[in-house]
């Protein structure tokens, strides 16, 4: 798969004009919006959606959906009734009554932002035909928060940047691209450490630029970061090849033979091995397998995979077992 881009994501924020926005909604309004959207979605013949009311979902299932990035934590903690429609391939999700009435999200693995945009746009067209969108000639799509008004569009990439992080370039890069209207978010663990060297890059500006330009801008900055990451990997390989080879093989060794492993440790090691594969050091496994692991090691998805609830201690054992099996 892709050596740097882990996932590509498009999100569109939409609201109905004839219902208060979620901050002013009661449960009754919220229920009506859910029913209306569910009704419209069910008429769609192109995709098959499964529909879930969040309150009716068991705790573990909610967590699984969060870990798969199909819903946001905000949807789960919503004070009003909320729901989600998820397509059978689990690329598309339509969140109802999150911060906005509708959040259309399309997520693909690798560098696939164009495809994600086309899907999101098509679903948006379909919903718009049957629902009265809150839209204004001047302001565009009206959103709950002024930071999303206009296109309501967020285009984002999850990037794996181990070499730039290792060489200490990330701080400077983040400072530079923040000035260009791009937001950078890390998966932060304890302290200020970024978990798994995974960073999310997305546009901040949603008003005053057409969708295509917003996406092109994020793509162009992302491409520059990708290029820098590849250069950084080459630099590491050329200047400290034995250090790097030792680092990635140690990581591979632990993953392959550990009997007890936490999700944080696994994430760090997967990151190292993933980099090692892209550098041509490790040939025993593939980036594809590691990206599968990236998902499976998460606490709720892991329990879902084994079909039972587990204590943290049990999870660490089962996690190690699963990693060994996949790296076999």
């Amino acid at each position: 798969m892709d050596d740097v881009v882990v996932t590509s994501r498009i999100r569109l924020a939409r609201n109905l004009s004839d219902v208060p926005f979620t901050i002013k909604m009661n449960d009754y309004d919220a229920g009506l919006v859910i029913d209306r959207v569910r009704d419209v979605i069910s008429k769609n013949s192109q995709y098959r959606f499964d529909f879930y009311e969040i309150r009716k979902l068991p705790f573990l299932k909610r967590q699984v959906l969060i870990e798969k990035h199909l819903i946001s934590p905000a949807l789960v903690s919503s004070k009003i009734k909320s729901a989600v429609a998820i397509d059978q391939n689990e690329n598309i999700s339509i969140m109802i009554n999150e911060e906005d009435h509708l959040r259309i999200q399309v997520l693909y693995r690798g560098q696939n932002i164009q495809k994600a945009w086309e899907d999101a746009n098509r679903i948006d067209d379909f919903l718009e035909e049957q629902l009265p969108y809150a839209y204004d000639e001047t302001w565009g799509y009206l959103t709950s928060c002024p930071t999303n008004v206009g296109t309501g569009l967020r285009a984002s990439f999850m990037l794996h940047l181990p070499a730039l992080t290792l060489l200490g370039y990330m701080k400077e890069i983040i400072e530079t691209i923040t000035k260009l209207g791009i937001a950078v978010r890390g998966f932060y663990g304890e302290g200020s450490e970024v978990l798994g060297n995974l960073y999310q890059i997305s546009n901040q500006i949603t008003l005053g630029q057409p969708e295509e330009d917003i996406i092109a801008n994020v793509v162009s900055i992302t491409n520059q970061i990708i290029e820098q990451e590849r250069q950084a990997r080459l630099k590491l390989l050329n200047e400290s090849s034995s250090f790097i080879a030792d680092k990635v093989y140690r990581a591979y060794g632990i993953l392959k033979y550990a009997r007890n492993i936490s999700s944080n440790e696994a994430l760090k090691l997967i990151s190292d091995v993933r980099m090692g594969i892209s550098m041509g050091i490790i040939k025993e496994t593939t980036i594809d397998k590691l990206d599968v692991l990236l998902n499976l090691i998460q606490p709720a998805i892991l329990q879902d995979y084994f079909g039972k609830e587990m204590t943290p201690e049990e999870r660490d054992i089962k996690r190690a077992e699963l990693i060994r099996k996949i790296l076999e």
Partner: protein
Amino acid sequence: MMCENCGKRPATVHYTQIINGVKTEMHLCEVCAKQKGTIEFDAPFSVTNFLAGFLEPAFGAQIIKPAFETQITCKGCGMTFEEFKRSGRFGCAMCYNSFSEKLYPILRRIHGNTKHVGKIPTKMGENLAIKREIDRLKIELNVAIKNEEFEKAAEIRDKIRELEKKLSRE
């Protein structure tokens, strides 16, 4: 409640001023409020204010900065601008128009821009697309005139007229 100044129109703007812990309120209609807004408050208020400021060091009086907050309320959902500032969220689609004047600087700060140029919902009709095309052509026209490309300018002008006709027909 009627306007305290003219007594003719309903009071929609409410001023609150706190001096030395004493709260004074004023309820005005929009017309009177606009006048007051530029002239400041009438004598009693400003004199008190001035004196309070003058005497402050000697008496250690504390002065809370007068709050001239016009209470704009959204007709759609009843949200006040204060409420919006606190939550950062709008209450309904009408809020954008209710608070529109105050929104320009906010949106400019966030997006560096105040005009949507992206997707138009097809249901909103071709009209909007045509209007936007006219806006674009007008810019092109200005450029052509500036560059003294009069033949091209005439062409663009004809295109604009054609589109405007199409608009008025609908």
